[in-house]
């Protein structure tokens, strides 16, 4: 005999959140990982996690974004350990269907930054978040946001020159 434990029902709000937020989340994860394929998986996994905690979340949208950053971080780190990023870097991203005319070199350099530096740049230049919100998103102090950004930009300038 089977039964399902009683619990909190997930109603149409979840479906609405999914429709409204998926696009932005996949794009965010794509920017953080450099992989569109991984980004799709990460965004959907983030929704699964939100579903699991639906009843306790006051701001599911914000939680989704934090989860996406964390999952992207995990992916980037495990990917790095497999040296896949090195290979991708060398082969100009075989995964990507990126149509990023003129930006390939810069994006490749960004993909090669340590994750937190990359995340700070994405949060600053694409999400346009203030430092306090970047700190929450990345999981560091506001002061660290400045130093991470500064280090990232210095590396990029050096590499580009």
């Amino acid at each position, binding site marked *: *005999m*089977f*039964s*399902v*434990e*009683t*619990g*909190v*029902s*997930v*109603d149409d709000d*979840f479906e609405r959140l*999914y*429709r409204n937020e*998926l*696009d932005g989340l*996949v794009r965010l994860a*794509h*920017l953080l990982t450099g992989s*569109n394929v991984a*980004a*799709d998986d990460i965004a*959907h996994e983030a*929704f*699964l996690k939100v*579903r*699991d*905690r639906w009843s306790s979340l006051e701001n599911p949208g914000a939680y989704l974004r934090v989860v996406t950053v*964390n999952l992207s*971080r*995990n992916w*980037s*780190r*495990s990917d790095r*350990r497999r040296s896949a990023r090195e290979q991708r870097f060398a082969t100009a991203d075989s995964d*990507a*269907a*990126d*149509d*990023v005319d*003129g*930006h390939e070199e*810069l*994006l490749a350099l*960004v993909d090669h930054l340590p*994750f*937190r530096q990359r995340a700070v*740049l*994405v949060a600053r*230049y*694409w999400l346009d978040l203030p430092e306090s919100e970047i*700190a929450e998103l990345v*999981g*560091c*102090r*506001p002061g660290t946001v400045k130093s991470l950004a500064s280090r990232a*930009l210095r590396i*990029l*300038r050096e590499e*580009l020159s």
Partner: protein
Amino acid sequence: MNDLDERLRGAFTARAESTTVDYRIDVGSTLTPSATVPSRSWTPTVAIAAVTVAIMVVGLALISRSTAEDEAPATVPPPASTAAVTTPLPADLGINPLLPEVFPTLAADDPRQAQATAAYSGFFIFASTQAGRAIIGRIESGRLVDPMAVSVYADADEIAFDLAGDQVVIAGTTYERHYVGTGQWTLVLRGETDTVITGADPETFVAATGGIPVTGVTLPPDGGVSFSLTPLPVGYEVIVEPATYPTRSPIVNLTFGSEATDSFGQVTVGRLSDLLRQATPSSFHQVDVNGTSGWASEPPARTVGIVIWRVAPATWATTIAATPTEALDLARSVRFVDEATWQATYNVVRPESFALQTSTD
């Protein structure tokens, strides 16, 4: 705004615009209807401790469960708990290696057995497998004193804190310091790998020992983080040995009664020692569970009792009951069997979704 700022904005916008988004309609609709978040009414009481590591126990969307009352088998095999430890490892039997090595049951003549409900109840979830974790502490007059969780993360980026921290210099080394709630502090030593210690006063411990007592950190190619503990100061012991825990390790449980009564109880069995979640903010003392050393909580008044003990080489059990005495009594009453026997006893079927949870990555 300088040129690099502009170039970054342009590059990010270009990549974002090139992103293809797969609206997995099937996934969306799968997410919604299975739409129950299982709730255990006493979970809030029990979950006082989940602060030091990113561990959550979450329910499955699909939970199969059955009561012994529903379709009770004719007999309930009551193997001795000591025999359970010698049960072949699931991996040896070709079974999902993340499942518990043994499963809980009660003796056939135990009056609670008739009401007992068994279930594959969810997963232990760590934020990632990229960490090894251990518990150290002192044992004084049978009580666990100054317990501390020691973790090594493969990457600093794995660690996120709700509250901003500061920096402290201890014995010439700079650590990040974060308050993580319930009187617990965490010190983080950044490096190629990141070493973390959490407890009521890790600073004093680290100052006395000259550092976090970790050595031999390796990152096995198949995942996880391995490390050893250096000799601990006099009086300190290893309470839970260093191990990497899988991100999604199924847990199973056996429940009887309800919280509304004084007779409720639950046995949870899984690959994770609940001490990793409970030890640092709670008080525990040693107890004997049929010849095995276990840990019993010392709860404040009107909260449940908890007993935690190891039941197989990589499997731990936790009992929860209305009082510490009842939790210990339940721990001593539990018998452990293999999965097939457990399934037959309680008419439980492993959810299909568990078949997916075979990787520790």
